[in-house]
């Protein structure tokens, strides 16, 4: 995560999580992104969230495609297994990885080029399969590594650095996800880590595929006047629809939190997402209601953020397929091979 080199020694006063690890243990290599890049703030939120929930680093698989966003898995949890794959293809690779071993935490990091153009189909189908995976779209409306072309999330009228306006309508991962049955939909802003951390934690606890679209301004190619994905624009237009707390499954903590939240959703693992603040006409478990709210406010040019939609009732990939409770990769061969006696019996059918 760090964008500056930090000393290896950790201060003894650094807080430790349930595993006795400090937040430094969840950091990764030094970022090579541009100074001020929104992606680094997202990385920081991921680091904090994983530290706070005491995730075992080696039980985390962090996967990405190609692009600026996809570089970031190198910058968090160096003790996790990383897989920087091919442009747009991370969802199938994460799906296969999850299919083989359902016991790991999967963190997919993607960008708007990766997820909304070259890998759009893959993302949609991962949503449909409800693969249990945190799926972060670091969305800046622009291709960074290839120097500033519009991406598919660029808003109509948003201007490139050279002043050309985009005329094609954007693909909004939030509305798209809602329309094809996504079970966890959130939008954040890289400039607001406090909002992002509980969303990340809830996403890890989620039963299936958790999309987190994070507006993450590109300081080099898309942070100028006329851009609708700049820091200034986002700050001026952000509408925080919800404020959430994530409450881990331990009951003694629940007791401290109290019950003054507007809506609480119990996650599959027993943890709770508590919506502290939601507008009075908003129900984060009602898809039609959420879509109507988003259409109304996005129509006014507002960037609606927060934990937007949550459905814990839909089975994930493994539940749909009734797969073994343990990782398929750990099944002993004797359980998998029917052996010679069965082969002899079976071959009577081939006569």
């Amino acid at each position, binding site marked *: 995560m760090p964008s500056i080199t930090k000393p290896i020694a950790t201060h003894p006063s650094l807080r430790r999580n349930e595993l006795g690890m400090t937040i430094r243990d969840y950091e990764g290599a030094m970022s090579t992104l541009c100074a001020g890049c929104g992606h680094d703030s997202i990385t920081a939120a991921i680091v904090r969230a994983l530290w706070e929930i005491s995730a075992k680093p080696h*039980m985390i698989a962090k996967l990405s495609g190609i692009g600026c966003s996809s570089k970031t898995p190198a910058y968090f949890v160096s003790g996790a297994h990383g897989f920087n*794959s091919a442009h747009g293809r991370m969802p199938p690779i994460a*799906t296969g990885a999850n299919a083989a*071993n359902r016991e790991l935490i999967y963190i997919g990091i993607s960008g708007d080029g990766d997820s909304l153009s070259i890998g759009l189909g893959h993302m949609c*189908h991962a949503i449909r399969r409800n693969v249990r995976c945190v799926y972060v779209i670091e969305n800046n409306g622009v291709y960074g590594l290839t120097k500033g072309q519009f991406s598919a999330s660029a808003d109509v009228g948003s201007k490139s650095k050279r002043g050309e306006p985009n005329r094609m309508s954007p693909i909004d991962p939030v509305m798209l996800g809602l329309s094809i049955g996504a079970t966890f939909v959130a939008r954040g802003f890289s400039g607001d880590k406090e909002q992002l951390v509980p969303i990340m934690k809830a996403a890890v606890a989620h039963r299936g595929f958790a999309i987190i679209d994070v507006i993450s301004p590109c300081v080099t190619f898309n942070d100028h006047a006329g851009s609708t994905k700049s820091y200034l624009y986002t700050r001026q237009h952000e509408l925080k629809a919800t404020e959430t707390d994530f409450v881990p499954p331990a009951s003694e903590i629940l007791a401290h939190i109290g019950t003054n939240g507007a809506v609480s959703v119990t996650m599959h693992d027993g943890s709770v997402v508590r919506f502290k603040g939601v507008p009075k006409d908003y129900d984060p478990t009602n898809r039609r209601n959420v879509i109507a709210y988003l259409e109304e406010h996005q129509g006014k040019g507002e960037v609606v953020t927060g934990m937007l939609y949550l459905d814990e009732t839909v089975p994930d990939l493994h539940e749909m397929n*009734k797969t073994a409770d343990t990782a*398929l990769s750990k099944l002993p061969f004797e359980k998998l091979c029917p052996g010679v006696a069965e082969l002899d019996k079976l071959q009577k059918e*081939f*006569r």
Partner: protein
Amino acid sequence: MQQPISDRVNDFAIKLANVNGTGSASANGLLMQAIFRMGIPVSGKNLFPSNIQGLPTWYEIRVNKSGYTARALDYDLMVAMNSQTYARDIHEVRQGGYLLYDSSWPLDNALLRDDVTFLGVPFARLCNENFRDSRERILMKNIAYAGTLVAVLNVDVDLVAALLDEKYSSKKALRDSNHRALRLGYDYAKDHFHCPLPFHLETMDANAGKILIDGNTATALGCLYAGATVAAWYPITPSTSVLDAFKGFCEKYRRDPETGKNNYIIIQAEDELAAIGMVIGASWNGARAFTSTAGPGISLMNELLGLAYYAEIPAVIIDVQRVGPSTGMPTRTQQGDVMECAYASHGDTKHILLFPGNPHECFELAPQAFDLAERFQTPVFMLTDLDIGMNDWVVPRLTWDDAYKPERGRVLGADDLEKMAKFQRYTNEDENFVAARTLPGVHPKGSFFTRGSGHNKLGGYTETPDEYQEVVDRLLKKHKAAAKFVPEPVIHGRGDSQFGVITLGGCDLAVREALDLLAERGVVADFMRVRGFPFNQTVEDFLQEHDFCFVIEQNRDAQLRSLLTLETAVAKDKLKSVLVYGGFPLSALHVVDGILNSLGTPDTPEFSTAGASMPQSQNEE
């Protein structure tokens, strides 16, 4: 070359011309299976269109007591049940042969031949009189012609009846209809024709220890026995039935008796890019995973195949080859993906290929594909073809050794990692240039970063020339080392041979028959069927030992020959092609003609090829 049409027992070919979607496949399969159970060597080739209903489809059955069951090219009996193709079909009957047709309507005189005997049975009329339901009338016409064939070819009628009982054991109404229809055709033939015809069947005992199975089923069974737990695929002809069969086997053998849960997962992906991505993700995570596809799927998979190759992740890809380029002819057969698979993906890549020659080998080589993929941490392709994959073959019973232990390759466990100071992904290679890998979730020290971008031997990102080259040079050595582990070629030497003949895959039977036919004419050649790439020393030796070799394959561009010239020491001009690539299964006659034409020898049995030399010009069919 052929015996007279009289006195031929268990040596003839018939062709059945049908309309697809009318239920002819079950009648044709019934005949094939009955002949198999009579102990006679037999093959059935389904020549079908890429269509659901209404287009011409053919089925060819060849019986041969000596075991030559490659596709025949002329037919003793044509079952002409499709008026659309009648004019074409009548021409394929050999002189003195027979044609069975539906005499419910008169035949067009223009389509008669006086050197062919016509057997008319009013199938439509008989079925209309005996069945009420219109769909049943159409379906039962097929069983009725099967009944006629049972009579005229001397198929064991009790055996056919028993097969119907087995097939419809739980569907009484259907069983009764089938028996009635069979009888209609059978009795009509017995009443009106001299049965059996001069060429016909007599029970033999050539099929003890044999089974009747298609390659896709055998491949699926091989993957099951190999312990594959993750299959990801996208539907495509002609490989779809691999996954259909795998699903069936998994439902039967992989449902945990205690928990009722599935010890497998099959994912129908959104496309082939995703299918291979899922296989790579699952293999990266330690499962045995595979995909099954055809050429167009391999084209789409190219991108991620390079990732698996470079990041050194196992993957098993079954390619049931069909005819390209592009959509090509999806229901026709070729070995047209050899080069595509050998070098799939951009940049410097080389892959391990396996070429089974029949369904028995599909079962045998599928576990080897997984063993090789995991031993060498790389994609392995098993290339079958439509003829092997979708047609029923008579092959030796499948065998399995319960002592088999999957070769999982160099994977460090928690104990290994605990003892290590530091794990570095691409270091400490073994004698086969394979470095140990780790699986996610096993041990904190096992973590590393998998990447398709430039990396050094520590697994770190690099753009430094030496570091990049060090890794890709090892990959090349690793690929070469795999030559010692791929299956040996099948070689039949004859002594005093004048040249070698090399082939692969489904060409096997036709080429071997052709070499026997050539030997009868004094043209003696040694046979080699390659079964793996990279080519091993045995292949090199065969090439060295022969002054020249023919390479017989089903594609336009001589892909196996190209691969041999690129990847062995053989001089290019020592290899000559016989290429048959129209899309139907290979016949021995193609091979005999191709070789004789190429040798420039007169087509007479007396001709001696003593001193035959390498022909000068290419003569590619």
